[in-house]
Every structure is written in C-alpha cells, then in structure tokens.
C-alpha cells in the first residue's frame, strides 16, 4: 500500500508540474525545411524569455492537418495555402523565413557559376527534351563553355518535399509545356531522371554522377561546394544564387496581406532577383487569440533578433518591408 501511495504522490507531482509548465509552452508542427532555424530561434527565445517552443518537423502536409484539427498552437508549411483554403479552415498565414532552390551540375571542367541556364532550357532538360549537354540551346546560352556530346542525367527528389514544390512551381510559371505535361506539387510524375532521397541524397548523387543536373536547397549547394549554375531571371539578367539575389526576390515579390501572403516567390520581377525563391509559412488558428499572441510574440522576437542566426544557417531573413506588413497583418487580425 505504501508503495502505491508513493507512486501516486510522484505522479501527482509530475502532473502538476506539467500543468504549471504548460502555460509557457507552445507546440508547433510542420515543414521540415525551416526546422533548423526554428529550433535555433526557439533555443535562443527560451534563454531570453523562458518560453518553451516545441516544434516537430513532421512535414508540411502533417502541419496543415494538425493546425486544421487544432491539435497544435501553430502549423508550418513550405507551400502557401490558397486564400480559399485559409478561409475554409479558419486559419491565418504569414511567411517566416525565405529559402531558395538552386540548380547544380556536374560536368568535367565546368566551375561553379560558369554554366548559364534559362527557364526554357531548364524545363526542357527536366522534361527530357534536351538530352545532351552540347544541345544547341545550351550551347547558345554558353558560347564560352566547351560542351561535349554527353547524355544528361537528371537527378530529382524521390520523397515529397517543399523543395520540389518550389522548383516545379518555377517551371510551371515559365514553361506551358511543363504545366500541361507535369505540373507542380510536392511530388510530381517526373518524365525522366533518377530519384534520390532528401537534399543530401540529391547532393550526393550530383557530386558522384558525371554529366548530371539536379536541384536542391541553397544551403546544401553551399555546404557541399557544388557547381551551381546561373539562371536567367524574369528581368532577363543571369544571376548568381546568393543572399543578395534571394533578398532582392523577397523585396520585389508582391506579398499581399489580403491574400494571407499567398505567393510563390518564383520569377520575381527584380533585376537582381534569383528566380526560384520561396517563403515558408506559419499557420495559426483564427479563434485561438491567446495562443496566437504567444506565437506571434515569438516570431516578432525572431524577426527582431533572429536574422544573424538565420543567415548563419543559410536561410534568408525576411526584408524589413515585409516584416512590417506582417506586423500590420497581425494587428488587423486582432492579435
């Protein structure tokens, strides 16, 4: 009997402890792409304020489902929800941080930034219509690069991912052919190529396979020192993937609070904009004002103090103009 009593006391203590703690704890779930920066911010925020943020990177699909069912305080998705979806599920949505997708190649003798591609060539390569590196189209974009008659190996993601969604959204916007034949989404029916799991899988495969091309998160191209290509943007300039060109894209992108910031940041109009960038989004439940205030407080803090950390982890912080728009959006929605 005595032991049972002891156990009961211990359990009671543990329970009351968790209850006491629950007040200072926020639960979030969703996209895996921003997980490193969210958890770094959460760590610093906890040190600064004592509030604990528990973020589970279960994937964007899971994040959307969990916030729709109200099992978490905030959800996160790499793809923006359409305004109709937001209205239907009674959610709020705002961007938190920006990432970019870069195309990388492995061709003997070609150095990072030497190869120039435009939207049409990229779409045709990933459609399997351009099969060899010395294709006229590629050669005309790269008069100075010596290309030989080697077959192109396309490497794409095998798992569903926001990176794929962003990349296919870009191709969708520039190639009518791509739009009708493949379309955009977290997983698509690839006409050609081999699938590799995760950004690290694609990086590994492109590094290893001669004459290959793949797409991956900017951070992975940086860390693995892969041969990134220049891309021609909507304004017609060939741009290098870098913090500056991503920021430029974010600056010139038309984020609109009226649409809950629904925007694919592809083919941004700026002269210096990298054409495949994208924000990753936070989702809130409209009616949970108290929880929302706490979540927003965290992101407001991150917007003010988190930029260096984000850059360190190779994410692009939101430009100031956008942060202001988001703060106004919070206010307008009573948070």
């Amino acid at each position, binding site marked *: 009997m005595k032991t049972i009593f002891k156990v009961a006391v211990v359990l009671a203590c543990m329970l009351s402890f968790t209850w006491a703690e629950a007040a200072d704890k926020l639960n979030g779930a969703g996209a895996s792409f921003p997980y490193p920066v969210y958890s770094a911010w959460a760590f610093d925020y906890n040190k600064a304020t004592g509030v604990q943020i528990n973020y589970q990177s279960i994937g964007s699909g899971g994040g959307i489902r969990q916030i729709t069912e109200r099992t978490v305080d905030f959800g996160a998705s790499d793809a923006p929800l359409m305004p109709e979806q937001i209205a239907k599920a009674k959610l709020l949505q705002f961007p938190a941080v920006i990432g970019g997708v870069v195309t990388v190649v492995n061709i003997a003798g070609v150095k990072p930034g030497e190869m120039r591609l435009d939207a049409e060539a990229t779409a045709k390569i990933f459609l399997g219509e351009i099969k060899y590196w010395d294709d006229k189209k590629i050669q005309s974009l790269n008069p100075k690069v010596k290309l030989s008659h080697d*077959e192109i190996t396309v490497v794409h993601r*095998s798992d*569903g991912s926001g990176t794929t969604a962003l990349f296919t959204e870009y191709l969708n916007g520039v190639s009518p052919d791509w739009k009708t034949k493949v379309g955009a989404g977290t997983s698509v*029916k690839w006409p050609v190529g*081999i699938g590799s799991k995760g950004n690290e899988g694609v990086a590994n495969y492109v590094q290893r396979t001669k004459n290959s091309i793949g797409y991956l998160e900017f951070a992975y191209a940086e860390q693995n020192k892969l041969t990134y290509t220049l891309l021609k943007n909507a304004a017609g300039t060939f741009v290098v993937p870098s913090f500056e060109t991503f920021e430029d894209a974010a600056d010139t992108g038309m984020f609109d609070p009226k649409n809950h910031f629904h925007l694919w940041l592809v083919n941004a109009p700026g002269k210096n904009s990298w054409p495949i960038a994208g924000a990753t989004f936070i989702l809130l439940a409209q009616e949970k004002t108290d929880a929302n205030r706490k979540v927003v407080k965290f992101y407001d803090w991150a917007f003010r103090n988190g930029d260096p950390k984000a850059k360190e982890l190779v994410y692009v912080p939101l430009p100031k103009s956008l942060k202001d728009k988001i703060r106004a959006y919070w206010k307008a929605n009573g948070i």
Partner: protein
Amino acid sequence: MAVTVKRNPGDIIFSSITAVAACTVIVFIIGILFVLIRESSLAIENFGVIQFLTSTDWDPVKESFGALTSIYGTVVTTVLSLVMAIPVALGIAVFLTEVSPNFLKGPIGIAIELLAAIPSIIYGMWGLFTLSPIMGNTIEPFLKRATADIPLVSVLFQGTPMGIDILTASIILSIMIIPFTASIARDAFNLTPDVVKESAYALGATKWEVVKNIVIPYSKLGVFGGMLFSLGRALGETMAVAFVLGNNHRIFTSLFDSATTITVTLANEFTEADKDVYLSSLFYLALVLFVMSFVFLAIAKFFLLRAERRHAR
C-alpha cells in the same frame, strides 16, 4: 477428467491477465485493418479495386493514383532478393548443421544473429553511400559489358548504370533476409533425426549425398516455410530500400531502372501528402500491402505447421 478442482484465485487472476494480453494482439490487428479501410475509403470510392490495382498512373498533381507500379516493384525486388538470398542461406544452414567443426558453429551463429540485428536504416545509409557507388561504377558497367551480346539477358541490363536501382535494392534486401532464411533452415535441418543420417553414413553415403537425399527432402516444408517468412519480411522492408530505389512510378524491364515499392512510396510521400485523395491513396496502398503480407504469412505458417506435424507423427 471430471474431477472439479477448487481453483486458486491467484490462478484465475493470472490466467485472465494472460488472456487479456493475448487478446490485445487480435485487437491491434483488427484495429489497424479497420483504420486502413476507413482512411482509404475515399480512394476506394474514387478508383475502385480493379482500377487501382491495375493502373500504372501515379500522378499527385492530377490526383490520379494506381498501385500497379508499386506492387510490381515490390514483387520484383522481393523475388530477386529471394533468388540471391536462398542459395547463400541454405549454404550457411548446411554448413552449420552438417559440415562445420563445433568450434566454428558458435561464432558463425552469432554473426548471423548480429546481421539480423542491424537496424534497416543503417542498411539504407550503407546502401546509398557505399554500395550504390560500387554498383554504379564497377559492378553494373561490368554486367552491362558482359551481357551485351546475349540476346534476352541484355534487356535486363540496359540503360545507364546509376547504382540507384532494382539491382542494388535487391542485393541489400537479400543481405537483410539471409539471417532469417538461414536460421529457419538451420532449425529445419536440425529436425532430421540423427538415426536416419547415421544410417545413411553407415551405408557409405558422402556428406553431399546425405544432405541432398536425406536432410533436404526431410526438411523441405520447413525450409519452404522459412523462405516464405523471409519473403514476408522482404515485402515489408522499408528504410533499407527507400534510399536506393528512387521512388519512380514506372513499369521497368531493366534491372538498372529506378523504381518503387509499396513501402518506399509510403516512406517517401507520406509526410508531404497534402491532398485528401493523395493521403487516402497512400493508405489504400498500405491496405494492399497488409493483405499481401497476410496472405504470404498465412501460406508460410501453413507449410511450417505441416512440417511440424509430419515430424510429430
């Protein structure tokens, strides 16, 4: 035995606790089946049974889903891995039961058990970072050259060798199922009565003849059951193949093609499945796998039971 025994209350409590524990298994199985059916109901409504099982289309963008490519990949990788694993596994079993000196039996037995204990994700990473470069750079180009002139066989080795393909996946799978097949086969071989074997040796039979004519016929059913068990395991194996199969929904003819299996599709696409029909179709795939595994394991159990009954007689 019509004697009524006064039962001790402790006994009653004990037996009811064990009965409840045993029932949980059945509750779990039925619960899982129920959930799979409920979650896949949307896909069943949309695509039916026959159409889903025979369609090769898997297009998340156009929301059109069919299971054939996944089922085909599952069956081919499983069969190939069995073809590669069974000779090795039988060799191990024969060596351990008939040939090996006693001092080697322990270490080899332990090595096999260790092989079975390696988590499958480790096989997957090893496969991606170690095996697949070796396959893509050395073994597969060699196979391609060696078979180039043989008419029908060369079809199997067409395309650019990449190392992310059916062949690599099957090899990893076969390494993973060797321990299971080997240990079940060893147990089955051990069931052969020593008297029979000794009689054969007494008649002047060689080791090879004893294995061929006495041990294998005697333990056929048990070995067969063991193979089916391994098949069940290969069917459900996920992480080890998810890394090296590429998740391509295509019907392939070459072993150098990247493909997908049911589990690989689930592992790769579940987290980012954002539309209802998409998610439901993934559950539907899981249901198909559940039924497939159930059927294979039922057959395996049937053979093993028959083998045991024969020995009991």
